[in-house]
């Protein structure tokens, strides 16, 4: 499972890095950034989903991989 932020939609609300700071961080202007390559470690799936479901801009995608 991977997370991805669409920079065209992100407005820097920061809900992702508030709710899942193991998966997301902020850039110098407060826009959300995926940490590393976005792979969600085991045990962090719930946090990833919370971030997706709480983004007011629908900017985060969860890519389920085989």
């Amino acid at each position: 499972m991977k997370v991805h932020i669409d920079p065209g939609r992100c407005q820097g609300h920061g809900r992702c890095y508030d709710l899942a700071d193991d998966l997301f961080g902020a850039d110098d202007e407060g826009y959300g950034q995926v940490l590393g390559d976005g792979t969600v470690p085991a045990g962090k799936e719930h946090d990833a989903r919370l971030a997706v479901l709480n983004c007011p801009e629908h900017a985060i995608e969860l890519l389920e991989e085989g």
Partner: protein
Amino acid sequence: MAADDRFTEDFREAREEELLGTISEVVTGPVSDWSTDFSHLEPEWSADPYKIQDDLRQRCPVAHTDRFGGAWLPTRYEDIAAIAYDTERFSSRAIILSNFRPPRELAPIGGSPPISSDPPFHHDARKLLLPAFTKAAVNRQEPATRAFCHSLIDALEGQDVVDAASDYAQHIPVRVIADMLGFPPQDGPQFRVFVEDLLEGINLPPDERIERVSRLFDYLLVQVHDHIDSPRDDLTTYLLNVELYGQKLGPDHVVGTMALLLIAGIDTTWSAIGASLWHLAKTPADRERLIAEPALLPTAMEEFLRAYAPVTMARLVREDMHWHGVDMKADDWILLSFPAANRDPAQFDRAAEVVIDRQVNRHAAFGLGIHRCVGSHLARMELRVALEVWLQRIGDFTLADPSAVTWSKGQIRGPRTLPLRIR
């Protein structure tokens, strides 16, 4: 050091000329029908806007009024989001709905960039502010904010009933923004007057309104000159020195942004803190749960922001158009109610209830799209610290007299009198 000659008398005169726009007739008095004659400045709205908005959402989702020279009020999340995202057809050159429309030439910069700006200028003006308002940057203000909240509680010592709006909530954002802008902390009481003049004096006669607004600009100019004479590490000096497109900002831009930061940071956060305390005072189960489970506060706070979103914005329609079933005219106002969006049952389960452990909460309290509140991280820090300190220090509190609670009027909603019994 070279003299900064941007802020002369000529600049004041030029600014006053810019204020020439369109003035419409002031209409006040009881609303006949909320779908055709709404006014967010009448007491019925202040008392309970949600009842009105919920009713409109059912029977007339894009309401109209002839007041203010013509305005629309959408109440569905979907429509409010569509307008927030559509900066092509809806301009931000005025964001406080009033009887005065600034001239079209004021776009795309507007009087208080970047909130009053349209693309493409908006992006560049906003970029200048973003680094000062990231979560990491505002968290540096947290220790001072916490200490200040404790000092406010210390000052309540010995009283059984306190006004949580005027003795507590109000002072917190005033102090924080004064520190950030580098204004004297003892000027705080004046800021409240500026805020009321700008946000609540909507239906005053135009001359009086202009007079009141110019008091704010007189004050800001004093601060500008003080910072030109003695620069320091704060947002005012930053705005005086920062460059855009290879040159320093125009005087209107500097002073307009200072006005924005001062006004937008105060009433809004004051309202959010007050509304949260009001809810907790009248809902013992939620209060006791938050004291028992402090880790739930960040989640609960988002729910308070959803249910009691303090901020409604405005837009101006650019051109005549048929939009979502209504005929909008150029220069019609839009009252962009994020509180109404946040209570749309099509978007939120149990929309009318306050559910403090709501896990999925895509609320729009800080707006949607390119105008997302620049101060949202600051507001969240202040709200969290204010509630943490209050719950730690006061814990048990109730409404001393529910009928004595008063609410602001206009686009920012929050309690202005909030008597709480604290022991």
